[in-house]
């Protein structure tokens, strides 16, 4: 008998409708995915994310889809849920000859619960960063990955549906009269006075209603989660990029080309993942990487790959240094008033950023020592009493201090005392200071006029007045608890935001170190040897910066781990993975090369650190 039911047109129509729903959901999954999670750093950012038009469309469409699913479920269940309008129970009076149509509140309840579940799903999708595509730690065939996740998915769907139904019952209790009234007036249906209205306590305690709504929710969530899971599995599947193009059409798809151009982020991620895999498992492709071009004899492949990996790592080093300097500047220059991190307050910090960008091009090596000098030079700012940032006296002095820190000066690296540094600028002006002044941002046009030494010009009065006003407003606002509640940056979230794309760097590290380790025995032409100093420099510098970063507050504390959750929160602990794989990469290179590393040209400071690695003392 039930099979007959299956073939009725109703059911077929419902199935078609369900497939359309799944299609729409999948399209939304594909549109909204992100390989780098966007982490809201403050509550206001989270609220901004929720009311963003994209998110609003997402929620509305999901709510509509949910309503459609619920309608299909209601129709297929038959029974009391089937129709929106049913004949009213006949009243006692006999003069009502025509039976009126009444609102079937159960059906309405069902539809609204479907919409509510769709909306809640969309909200949870946003809050839990479900659009983030985590790449798996081990490679597995797609079917095995799917099968492994299925039990957890089903269990999660059941539990979550329970919560949704409970929340919806509460919402319906308070606000259920609104849609009831609206529907009955627009569709000219009467509220059946004989039947119990549902938005009362006794009406809601209907077990069969609860059970049907829960079942509908389970079905909805499981189908949507399966669509999401399948999308994730297919999107993060490893893709094989050829290293050496065999056909002319493939030139655009080959690995070095893709890494060097600026492809969409997911392609770059897949390319780096492929690099990591080929460096570990594929001797043939490694040979292609180490090969020379014909007829020129240039190692194009290796140069392209190593250059891209090194630039990625240098960018990360850069970013971390600027973060550290911003943290140092904020901690010292500002009166303590929460963690209001707006654009750097001190002109010194801005200058520092420019300095870092400037000398990055010139020389990577002294960066670490330079930034420690930068920090030590920021100390005097705190000790000079009453020195307000905007005062005309401290900024040129600060500029002087900043101005001296260029890599060409012989003072660099040897001078630590504040007084000597203050004296320093008067001896000469170097070319990079003039260069630096030229590259200032537009917001401080006056600073570019500040010359080192005796030419110290007072910044314009308007500028200082504006700075003062800004300071006052910020101080005032920071005392308002409500403002601070919304605008204060959550430290853990801001740390996660810095490392949100660290997966790229982890793969670059692994790929590079495996290739270098393999080159000890497999590199026939010695293409890796010439780049070894640059690689070691970058890795050691990055390691120093990361170690220093982990000394900042909150960075080394692990976020609480919830095991058995469906949502992947691996982006929260990416920084630990980065630190571990950086160390492993360095050890890999030192273990394979051993004492031969002493012949590589690196700075003395780095030589000392390499010695530590060789003796396994790091």
């Amino acid at each position, binding site marked *: 008998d039930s099979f007959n039911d299956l073939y009725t047109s109703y059911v077929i129509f419902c199935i078609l409708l369900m497939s359309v729903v799944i299609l729409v959901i999948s399209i939304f999954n594909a549109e909204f995915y992100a390989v780098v999670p966007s982490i809201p750093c403050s509550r206001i950012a989270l609220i901004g994310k929720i009311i963003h038009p994209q998110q609003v469309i997402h929620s509305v469409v999901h709510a509509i889809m949910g309503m459609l699913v619920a309608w299909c479920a209601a129709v297929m269940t038959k029974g009391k849920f089937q129709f929106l309008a049913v004949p009213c129970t006949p009243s006692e009076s006999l003069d009502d000859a025509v039976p009126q149509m009444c609102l079937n509140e159960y059906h309405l309840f069902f539809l609204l619960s479907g919409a509510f579940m769709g909306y809640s799903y969309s909200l949870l999708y946003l809050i839990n960063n479900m659009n983030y595509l985590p790449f798996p730690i*081990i490679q597995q065939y797609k079917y095995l990955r799917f099968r492994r996740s299925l039990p957890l998915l089903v269990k999660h769907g059941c539990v979550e549906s329970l919560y949704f139904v409970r929340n919806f019952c509460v919402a319906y209790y308070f606000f259920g009269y609104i849609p009831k009234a609206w529907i009955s007036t627009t569709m000219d249906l009467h509220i059946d006075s004989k039947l119990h209205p549902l938005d009362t306590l006794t009406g809601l305690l209907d077990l069969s209603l609860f059970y049907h709504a829960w079942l509908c929710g389970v079905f909805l969530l499981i189908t949507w989660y399966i669509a999401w899971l399948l999308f994730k599995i297919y999107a993060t599947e490893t893709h094989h990029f050829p290293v050496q193009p065999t056909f002319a059409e493939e030139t655009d798809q080959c690995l070095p080309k893709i890494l060097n151009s600026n492809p969409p982020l997911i392609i770059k991620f897949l390319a780096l993942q492929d690099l990591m895999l080929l460096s570990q498992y594929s001797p043939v492709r490694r040979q292609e990487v180490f090969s020379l071009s014909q007829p020129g004899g240039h190692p194009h492949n290796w140069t392209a790959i190593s250059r891209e990996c090194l630039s990625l790592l240098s960018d990360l080093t850069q970013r971390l240094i600027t973060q550290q300097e911003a943290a140092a500047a904020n901690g010292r220059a500002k009166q303590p008033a929460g963690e209001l991190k707006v654009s750097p307050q001190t002109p010194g910090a801005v200058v520092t950023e420019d300095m870092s960008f400037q000398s990055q091009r010139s020389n990577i090596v002294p960066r670490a020592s330079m930034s420690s000098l930068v920090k030590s030079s920021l100390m005097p700012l705190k000790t000079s009493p009453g020195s307000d940032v905007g005062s005309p006296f401290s900024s040129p002095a600060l500029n002087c201090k900043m101005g001296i820190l260029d890599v060409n000066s012989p003072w660099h690296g040897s001078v630590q005392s504040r007084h000597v540094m203050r004296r320093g600028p008067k001896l000469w002006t170097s070319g990079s200071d003039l260069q630096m002044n030229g590259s200032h941002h537009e917001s401080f046009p006056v600073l570019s006029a500040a010359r080192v030494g005796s030419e110290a010009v007072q910044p314009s009065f308007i500028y200082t007045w504006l700075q003062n006003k800004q300071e006052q407003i910020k101080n005032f606002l920071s005392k308002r608890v409500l403002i601070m509640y919304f605008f204060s940056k959550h430290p853990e979230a801001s740390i996660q935001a810095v490392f949100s794309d660290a997966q790229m760097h982890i793969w670059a590290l692994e790929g590079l170190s495996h290739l270098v380790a393999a080159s000890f025995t497999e590199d026939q032409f010695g293409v890796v040897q010439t780049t070894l100093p640059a690689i070691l420099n970058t890795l050691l510098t990055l390691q120093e910066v990361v170690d220093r970063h982990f000394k900042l507050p909150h960075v080394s504390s692990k976020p609480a781990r919830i095991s058995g959750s469906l949502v992947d929160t691996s982006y929260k602990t990416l920084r630990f993975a980065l630190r571990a794989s950086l160390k*492993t990469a360095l*050890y890999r290179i030192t273990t394979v*090369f051993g004492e031969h590393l002493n012949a590589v040209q690196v700075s003395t400071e780095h030589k000392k650190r390499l010695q530590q690695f060789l003796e396994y003392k790091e």
Partner: protein
Amino acid sequence: AGCIVRAFAWHPHTSKFAVALLDDSIRVYNSNSATIPSLKHRLQRNVAAMAWKPLCASILAVACQSCVLVWHLDPTSLSTRPSSGCAQVLSYPGHSPVTSLAWAPSGELLLSASPVDTAMLVWDVSTENCVQLQWFGGGGVTYLAWSPDGSKVLAATPSAVFRVWEAQMWTCERWPTIKGRCQTGCWSPDGSRLLFTVLGESVIYSLSFSEYRGEMQGQVGGSKTASIVADLSETTFETLYGEERIGGEVHSMVWDPTGERLAVIIRGHADAPGSQTVIAVFRTRNSPVFELLPCGFLRGERGAQPQLITFHPCFKKGALLTVCWSTGKISHVPFFFVSAHVPCASPSRSPVTVMAMASASVREQPLFSEL
């Protein structure tokens, strides 16, 4: 049973080792420093196995009753009691007691297995994420061994089946044995040969695998059958001290990292008179053909039975076998030979060849070979 030493692990790159004792504390001995850190943690109970992380200075994974503890020790610290804060707890519901651990030779993943859990866990230690590798039936895992080239993992189960997993796509091959469970196994240095023994039989089997080329994704590549390479049943030897009956079942087996020496603990039949537990040492070669030749026997002092054996991972002058005896003594037996392999670069200090132990050191008179 009744031995003070529960587990022993050499550091893969330096002359440092960790000893787990019966009172659930772990001591780390270093040839370069006089301090002996003692590791204690409230979750560290019933330690069954330990493993140092490869390509790292001092991270030690400990298999405990309810979890896996990963100690992050400071290699330069002089403290004798590292705080519990250095230990990272990796636990998963249903995965206890953990009895076997294996680190990937490339240093990134940690495998943990329990005899009651039909799933092996692959941990990414720094993010504390794990992936379950599940199978159906056959019980948990009693013995784990990762091949030194990083391509395959042996997982022995309590039933008459063992699995060999390949470590790229994590598919496995099932190998049913005939008589009993796989007792122990060890890999050749290039991962192409697996020697294993079965409980109840006194032979050593060999299983060869095709050489790992990157194109062979998802295939373990094992040959169709295993062949017997050594028969260790009881025989009588004429020695200076009279007749000796040696032979029986294999208790554990280790292969040295150069692939030149194989050490096997042979337990004689308990009821036969005069039976004893000895360590048999074989000279082996894996390429161009596999060769296994008996080399000699190791015996401890009267009443001492060998419990744990392991080779030093980077002994430059040949091979160094460490034996933990039932009397609580740990001894190191050197084998001096010139290895046929190209030696890998290793730390500049030459490792001390024989180290004194805190409990006592026994220098035996073993039969060792010299080329």
